[in-house]
């Protein structure tokens, strides 16, 4: 753990796209984040893992301006930012794909694709331009769906995830946050999404944070893994220096401790 923290601090600041220093978030008397130190380098895919209730979603929502931190600071490309809203984080290029995908079932694929960044002609929606662009974006990313006029409700989980990712990428994303990108997906659809992540990393060099409960599935596409536990990053290592087995051992040992009634390390 000591090593992990050292390597985190030892990295060159200039290469970081995002850096969190001592981020604290409380909900009433409950302290969820107790001083998170984390960084994502440019072009890097970071796997953020942690058990249920470790604070992954809270950390995500703090980075995206949904929650305001109670302490610590966030730096984007070396400059401290004080995020007040999701819109502000988006303007800085931080795009998030939430677990519920933030898609509106009742709207068409192309309307979802441009939700809140619609193309307009005067006061009116420019549906034709949005359709053309949506078709082009999805083709570029190798995403295939029956029709862009289709209501999102009619698509499969993988197709919906792909649309949500495409939307984030094409909203001038400088960094992508993916919350449980493989949730409720079978192997076939999950592989599709992993391919998509791999391609985004190689072709566009977009830094990404994958927030996952099930790290084994995404291990291959990550450059580095961070383990969030007890409100802190307790483990930080490049994937080359760790393995799924080691991560499993860390998680399982936690369960063992819990079962023996010993207090968890903090």
């Amino acid at each position: 753990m000591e090593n992990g923290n050292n390597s985190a601090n030892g990295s060159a600041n200039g290469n970081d796209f995002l850096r969190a220093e001592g981020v604290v978030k409380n909900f009433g008397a409950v302290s969820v984040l107790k001083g998170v130190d984390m960084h994502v380098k440019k072009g890097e895919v970071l796997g953020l893992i942690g058990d249920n209730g470790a604070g992954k979603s809270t950390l995500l929502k703090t980075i995206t301006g949904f929650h305001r931190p109670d302490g610590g600071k966030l730096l984007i490309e070396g400059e401290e930012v004080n995020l007040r809203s999701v819109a502000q984080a988006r303007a800085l290029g931080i795009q998030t794909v939430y677990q519920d995908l933030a898609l509106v079932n009742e709207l068409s694929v192309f309307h979802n694709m441009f939700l809140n960044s619609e193309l307009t002609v005067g006061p009116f929606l420019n549906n034709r331009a949005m359709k053309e662009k949506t078709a082009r974006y999805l083709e570029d990313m190798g995403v295939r769906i029956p029709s862009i006029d289709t209501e999102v409700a009619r698509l499969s989980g993988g197709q919906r995830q792909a649309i949500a990712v495409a939307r984030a990428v094409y909203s001038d994303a400088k960094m992508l946050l993916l919350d449980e990108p493989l949730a409720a997906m079978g192997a076939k659809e999950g592989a599709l999404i992993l391919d998509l992540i791999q391609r985004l990393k190689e072709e566009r060099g977009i830094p990404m944070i994958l927030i996952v409960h099930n790290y084994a599935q995404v291990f291959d596409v990550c450059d580095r893994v961070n383990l969030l536990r007890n409100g802190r990053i307790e483990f930080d290592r490049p994937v080359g220096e760790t393995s799924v087995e080691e991560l499993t051992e860390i998680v399982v040992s936690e369960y063992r401790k819990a079962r023996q009634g010993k207090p968890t390390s903090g």
Partner: protein
Amino acid sequence: MSETTGQTSGETAAPETGNGTQERGVGMRILGALARVREASVLLVAVGLAIYFQSANSAFLSQQNILTLSRYAVPYVVIAAALCLLLICGEIDLSVGQSFAFAPIVMYLAYDKLFLVLPLAVLVGLLAVALVGLINGVITVYLGVSSLITTLGMFFLLAGLCVTLTGGFPATPPDANTTTRILGEYAWSGTIWAVVIVILLQLLLSRTRWGLHTYATGGNPLGSREAGVSVARIKIGNFMLCAVLGGFVGIIESFRISSIDPLAGGPQLVLLCIASAVIGGTALLGGVGTATGAFLGALVLIILQNGFTLQGISAYTFNIILGIAILVAMILNVYVARLRGAGRV
């Protein structure tokens, strides 16, 4: 260890969700087609009723009756279409009927007691109901009170204000002049206003960002917020729009009948308008509906009412048919919502 089990079951459930998607696809396709033909079917019902009533009584399609019918329909059509916006974004305004009564009263007081010129007095009346909408919206959105309760409270508050401000007696609006003619005294002016308002609302809904965000807000409030849609602004804006349109059509109506009635905003008005919107395909749970549908829904109800009156059938029979129509429409809506809910798993 229980968590590990939960996790495994979650994984095995995944492929099933995939299959569910396929079935849902078919179900949604049928319902989508149903929703699309909804307006056409309501129009068909309206035409069918018109033909039936004409064959039963040739006075039905006489110029005089068409004028009567269209003038009578104006408040219902406008309020139904305005309510539709609010219903689509997942809220309701039970007080819109009272805004209908309140705006002309404020206008009258501004004209009669503050000696404002009439166009300015009209503006004051509209500002008053805009404030009503703002209060409805702020209480609902920021204080977290269900809009059903917020606007129920506002309903009684305004009902009391209307009677208090007028002393309980109808007032007479200003004498005929250009403003009153434009706003309702000319025989067809109300109808023209109503048609223009419905067209504008439909344009707003289907062709602008505001409309798209209204659907998004009702369809997936949390998701819309995550996408950066200002859900609070959309909801409060639609509360205000609904109240202002209700008040505006109230002013039009007061010029038409040359009377400002403090009791004009009774529950019958708003309930009929909600029924119109629902019959026209608006989902009470939000995300679905059109202003055109609400317009056609109101038209069907008005034709029914007028046709029955011409045939000498009592209002009670009308209520029975209205009740059945609402129940059928609601059962359809619930069915749609249930399928969509299943789609969200």
